[in-house]
């Protein structure tokens, strides 16, 4: 089981808004696939999938605010 965390994004940035999921729960993902997009200030950025497996759980949805270090999703390998 791999937890997908919101990593550090830069000095002074503690949170971001989830703006787009590229996959749905239950779908298969490959390592390095674009998994989710977030927005902070005037920038959108992507998080690539850290591993290959099934996206078993999505913990934040589009429009939600996520803090750095929080778990966005769980992937089972």
């Amino acid at each position: 089981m791999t937890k997908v965390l919101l990593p550090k994004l830069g000095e002074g940035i503690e949170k971001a808004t989830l703006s787009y999921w590229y996959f749905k729960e239950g779908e298969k993902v490959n390592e390095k696939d674009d998994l989710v997009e977030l927005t902070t200030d005037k920038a959108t950025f992507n998080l690539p999938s850290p591993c290959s497996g099934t996206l078993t759980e999505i913990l934040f949805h589009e429009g939600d605010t996520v803090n750095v270090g929080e778990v966005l999703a769980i992937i089972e390998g």
Partner: protein
Amino acid sequence: MDFRVFDLGLVDFQKAWQFQKEIFTKVKIGKFDSGIILCRHYPVITLGRLANRDNILASEQELSSKGIQVHKIERGGDITYHGPGQLTIYPIINLNYFKKDIHWFLGQLEEVVIDFLSDFGIKGERHNGLTGIWVDKKKIASIGIAIRNWITFHGLSINIKKDDLSNFRLIRPCGMDIEMTSIESVLNKKEAFPPKSRLAGRKRFMAKEEVII
């Protein structure tokens, strides 16, 4: 560092959007390290990822009679307008070579605009912690970017000509009630310079490619 500058001139937004993606891919596969695209757009409205369509104030009929298309795109920020009186710049920068810090990069873009304006004797400023550059509390440059695998695209536009500003009334720029200004308005005269040559002529650029797309 292999840095390319592409000057597209006056170009349709969608064509330039496609061109950005091509340059992005070339930077991603390491064909060159980073690129900067300079252009001007035919009138167009773009909506950022979290934009609210209610910020389009004009009716669909009004937009279509003016030939203005609306595009929903993957950049940050709300709504904006682009026209031929602006210099629009798309920096395709691989931040893996610089600093993986979104705030830092946005700050660098703001510095570029402040620097550019100072060439005209204009003092550009940050305002209330909002991204973008302002002159006397009016907005002169807007910023909205996207980052994928720490490579940037989309970018910024600087209002150069006066004539285009009236089209900002079709929208609520950035979702806020703000007033826009331009270099011409601030200088209160017609500027005789072609903005692209002024920017592209700077020493810091190592190569320049004229592109017709």
